[in-house]
């Protein structure tokens, strides 16, 4: 298993999100490798769900495309298995609780272990309900990565206690998607978090331009880019390899402080 901690080891992590099965599973496998070659340090593989309540339009539409193209858990697991010898960066899944629950927690996390997927992000799993997931996940060494929102302040200590992997810092209120402006004070929020945890903190929700990514990388351990990448696949479909590679390498340069912005 490629360890999540490796993504943050001595560098600022660029975390790329791709929706499995958009535009189809074969292309997803290719684009995951594209992201790795272009410099992504950790890759979040989205498992589509019919009712993604934390997503904005871009990822909602990608979920619909992936489901219509027939992407379901078994097929997604096969796709990830096909990458096993080529993947050097850590992988995590991002999905909603219901597909995991219905598949069966034991069976799901056992499969994660076999595939070398070291973590999971579940937006509709708050601290209050995490126990039913954390027990089977930890049995198979899968980290349940918690999200921290701008309104979490009083809840932070509870959330980060016993957390694993990294902390997903939600930049702004609302759903995922490209924003013109991120309203919360990331710098202050990160220093508050750092008092409570030694885990890496990566920021996501609404980060799209390399410039923005570079700015946030200054205050955090990593930057998560999702909707902007998914948008690019929506635009280019099966021919997104070049555009995706170029964009992710720009993000990477910026996050590493090697950009020219």
């Amino acid at each position, binding site marked *: 298993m490629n360890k999540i901690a490796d993504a943050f080891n001595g560098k600022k992590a660029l975390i790329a999100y791709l929706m499995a099965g958009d535009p189809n599973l074969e292309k997803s496998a290719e684009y995951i490798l594209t992201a790795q070659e272009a410099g992504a340090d950790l890759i979040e593989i989205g498992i589509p*769900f*019919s*009712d*993604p*309540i*934390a997503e*904005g339009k871009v990822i*909602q539409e990608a979920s*619909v495309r992936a*489901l219509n193209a027939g992407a*379901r*858990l078994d097929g997604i697991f096969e796709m990830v298995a096909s990458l096993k010898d080529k993947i050097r960066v850590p992988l995590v899944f991002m999905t*909603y*609780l*219901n*597909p*995991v*629950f*219905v*598949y069966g927690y034991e069976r799901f996390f056992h499969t994660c272990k076999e595939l070398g997927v070291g973590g999971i992000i579940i*937006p*509709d*799993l*708050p*601290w*209050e*309900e995490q126990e039913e997931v954390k027990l089977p996940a930890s049995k198979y060494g899968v980290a349940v990565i*918690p*999200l*921290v*929102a*701008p*309104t*979490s302040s*009083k*809840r932070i200590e509870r*959330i980060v206690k016993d957390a694993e992997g990294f902390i997903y810092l*939600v930049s702004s*209120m*609302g*759903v995922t998607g490209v924003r013109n402006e991120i309203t919360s004070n990331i710098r202050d929020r990160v220093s508050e978090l750092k008092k409570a945890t030694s885990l890496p903190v990566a920021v996501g929700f609404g980060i799209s331009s390399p410039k923005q990514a570079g700015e946030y990388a200054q205050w955090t351990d990593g930057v998560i880019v999702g909707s902007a990448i998914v948008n690019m696949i929506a635009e280019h479909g099966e021919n997104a390899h070049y555009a995706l590679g170029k964009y992710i390498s720009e993000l990477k340069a910026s996050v590493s402080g090697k950009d020219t912005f």
Partner: protein
Amino acid sequence: METGRYGPYGGQYVPETLMSAVDELCGAYERYKNDPDFCAELEDLFVNYAGRPSLLYEAKNLTKDMGGAKIYLKREDLNHTGSHKINNVLGQTLLAKRMGKTRIIAETGAGQHGVAAATAATLLGMECEVFMGKEDTQRQALNVYRMRLLGAKVHPVTTGTMTLKDAVNEAMREWSQRVDDTLYVLGSVMGPHPYPMMVRDFQSVIGKELKKQLIKKEGRLPDAVVACVGGGSNAIGTFYDFIGESSVRLIGCEAAGRGIDTEKHAATIAKGSVGILHGMKSLFCQDEYGQIAPVYSISAGLDYPGIGPEHAYLRDIGRAEYVPVTDDEAVAAFERLSRLEGIIPAVESSHAVAYGMKLAKQMPKDAIIAVCLSGRGDKDVAAIARYKGEDLYE
């Protein structure tokens, strides 16, 4: 039982961005639910604005026609705005005001909850925005106009199946963007804790009145209480005061659409399995991979793939029964009640009337069935005409 849990069901499965708002609501509800001023103000709104208590009407013609048990109708259709939805909405909007909120948002299926929310918001001086599946805005165009007339902004939802479940998704997304000044006024006994409990409490006035009224008229409890179930708010409101009365059968009527052996139904208890959606663990219509299934019913208010967690629990422990009722049966009951009693029921409530009729025939004449007539049917007239093949548009 753990707070917010009904056996294995219930819980608070919402994104972290909403948890502070859900926590705040829990605290506010605990603080005000027994507050004398709050309760007095709500009671005053119930009596002097909504027109409570609603009548308990003995449907003599219908009883005679069935030739069996005596049928009573709990006339929630006579409430202001035409359904039971006003009970919950007055409670939540009043609570929102106490919490210092200035804006409420709501989802709606048939439009009854949306109209009630728009009404309460106007009355209490709040802004109101309603999310409604685009398909439902077309099925229930008059209710969309009503909401606008009342000053609410209506957002047609174009994602997913464009019905009630998608309206809930969109309302949750909207709430997660703006929690400071906004309360999400959920319309049924679903969603994360405290909604299933709070909405049940506000709706339990139905069963409390029914019990008192029937004891006054008949000197005894009913043998069966029947209500339709989408999310299940009128049903739990009707059942709640009878749960401890083991002689009373509690029967929820689900929308079987074109039949539970087809794919066109919304019969969650008959066909669903355990899942997690909209903040709760409960029963849902879904596929083997946990993707929520598109559901169908002639009634926009029952067209929901899940059911409130307390209903799932009452089913498990055998305290309540749930039966599927088809579109055809509901439409037949809609017509029968209109012709026999001069009461046009909502197509949702017609599901309960249909089963009440069926049950009456199987029971002796000295038995008593109470059916919750949760809403009036004016909104459905054009749709039923079209269902019967008439080319009628609103």
